[in-house]
């Protein structure tokens, strides 16, 4: 019986990680049949460039979600850190501008994590708290810029982050992949990573077996904030300018990608491979819609449905496994 269960579990894991990969391949095939311009080198690099911003946000948020919480504040963190990185450059130079933005991103995570752990927040509380934080950071971004866009940097190495290529590969996607690899190793191969899984699966039990739940929760939020800052760099370097509302809806797109990739919102499961697949699926869908000529605002309709559908599928799968 035990062996049978194990086999069932193993098959389910394979099923879960490969269905989405299969979906991605089918999507790519469909898109290339529908449009000849889809499967060109230029368009593929384009997709990668487009997803790298949302991808970085999603990588960071995956940590929070695997840890059993939620982070709504990442979108405005992207806006704020992007603005700081651009507007501080003339004053303190590129390096310090980026360093300060990164520190701001991490601090936002620290604040989120500290508030949520100090009130013993449930997942519901983490939604509300970071929802409030989203507004506060958005407001700070608006106050700093007085609501206007900030013209871009003229520093070549900064622009390189968003627009440069190494060979034919865009630098931003290298940044995304390298971060993904480091983070994947951290969460799957280290004891810290394991503790985050335990915490996400059952925070009470994790506490009882001696895991410093509060510490790890704060860490997940700090990682999320840091990755939002990296996304802010890529975004502002790519479009060469920063806007106080540039990151609006990014948290939503990141959650969608994460759930589409197969990480359950209950926490304690999934790896960054899921996130990457989800990010690519969303990238291909957006790109295909762009090619067909659907405006980004109208794409919201499709994306809203995808999020709900993905969550439904996730919950149904758990129901089949008898966990729901």
């Amino acid at each position, binding site marked *: 019986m035990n062996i049978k269960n194990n086999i069932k579990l193993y098959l389910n894991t394979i099923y879960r990680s490969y269905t989405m990969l299969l979906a991605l391949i089918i999507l790519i095939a469909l898109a290339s049949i529908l449009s000849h311009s889809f499967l060109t080198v230029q368009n593929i690099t384009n997709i990668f460039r487009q997803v790298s911003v949302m991808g970085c946000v999603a990588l960071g948020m995956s940590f929070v979600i695997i840890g059993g919480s*939620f982070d709504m504040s990442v979108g405005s963190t992207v806006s704020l850190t992007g603005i700081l990185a651009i507007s501080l450059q003339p004053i303190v130079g590129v390096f310090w501008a980026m360093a300060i933005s990164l520190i701001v991103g991490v601090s936002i995570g620290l604040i989120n994590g500290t*508030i949520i752990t*100090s*009130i*013993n*927040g449930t*997942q*519901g*509380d983490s*939604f*509300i*708290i970071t*929802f*409030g*934080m*989203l*507004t*506060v950071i*958005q*407001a*700070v971004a*608006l*106050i700093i810029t007085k*609501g206007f866009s900030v013209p871009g940097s003229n520093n070549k190495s900064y622009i390189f982050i968003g627009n440069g290529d190494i060979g034919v590969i865009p630098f931003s996607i290298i940044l995304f992949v390298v971060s993904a690899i480091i983070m994947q190793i951290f969460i799957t191969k280290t004891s810290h990573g394991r503790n985050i899984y335990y915490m996400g699966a059952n925070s009470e039990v994790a506490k009882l077996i001696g895991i410093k739940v509060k510490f790890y929760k704060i860490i997940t939020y700090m990682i999320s904030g840091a990755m939002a800052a990296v996304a802010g760099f890529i975004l502002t370097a790519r479009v060469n300018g920063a806007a106080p509302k540039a990151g609006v*809806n990014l948290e*939503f797109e990141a*959650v969608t990608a994460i759930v589409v990739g197969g990480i359950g*919102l209950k926490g304690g499961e999934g790896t960054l491979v899921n996130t990457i697949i989800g990010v690519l699926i969303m990238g291909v869908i957006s790109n295909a819609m762009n090619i067909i000529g659907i*405006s980004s*605002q*109208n*794409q*919201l*309709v*499709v*994306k*809203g*449905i995808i*999020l*709900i559908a993905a*969550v*439904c599928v996730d*919950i149904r799968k758990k129901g089949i496994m008898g966990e*729901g």
Partner: protein
Amino acid sequence: MKNILNFIKSQKLLVVFIVIFLASSFTTKYFFSFTNIINLLTQVSTYGIVAIGMTFIVITGEFDISVGSVMALSGVVVVSLINSYGLAVAMLALIAIGFIVGLINSLLVIKVKINSFIATLGGMIFYRGIAFLITKDGTPVLPKVEYYNKISTGTLFNIPFLVYIFFIIVIISEFILKKTTFGRNIYSTGCNYEVAKFAGVNVVFYKTAAFIICSTGAALAGLLMSSRLNTAAPIAADDAALSALSAVVLGGTSLSGGTGNALKTLVGLMILGLIVNALNMVGISSYIQLAIKGTLLILFVSIERYFQNRAQAVSS
């Protein structure tokens, strides 16, 4: 003396409200004028209706953050329909929007068992997307009929209709929650879902009803807002969920469900309204107000949870 102290203890927020009210009236001479008080009431009324609807859903232990998008969608739909088909069709559409959105939300939350925050987050994006689709790239829709603007801004005894509508809704909601079986069952659904179910309460029905009340309130608020501004934009009301949730939580309705009422939300709304009004008078920009609103939401939720945790620690 003891009675007064007890009153202060039980009605902390009302005391806070009175203190802010008196403080504002002493600091600026314009505050205590009829125009300003009416202004204040008009300002809180639109989001106030959303907040009253939100109170129902929070009492059942769920959230709805799609309210802002529903407001925008209903505004856009109602104005477009009123231009071509008249008021009756527009009102039918409004009710249909409230009903369908509430039904979809409750279906996702109760039947599919999606966390209400995620379900309504998807909805929030989706409904705003539809509002954009209808308006063709986000151009605001303007009402072509004269009376539309009057629905909100027409006055009786110098008080706008909007304020009357809001207070009628508060009174009806308070009555429903406090005096009817329907209201009692809403509380028991939120207090303990399983127990209520075993006690024979049709929990699915009451949660669904709460979702429908919430989104219908938002749809109505969308009409009143577009009527007040005499325009309906798909980007409108993006801070509605934040403001409504803040008011509900500040009023003392617990996010864990089972407590709270419409009058509490009214007090929460008035306190927030007074703060915004005072900030406006001192000339603090709307961006800083946004920051203050967000901070207050975080603060209220944290304080509420803190005391809850402490109470739990004491009782165990």
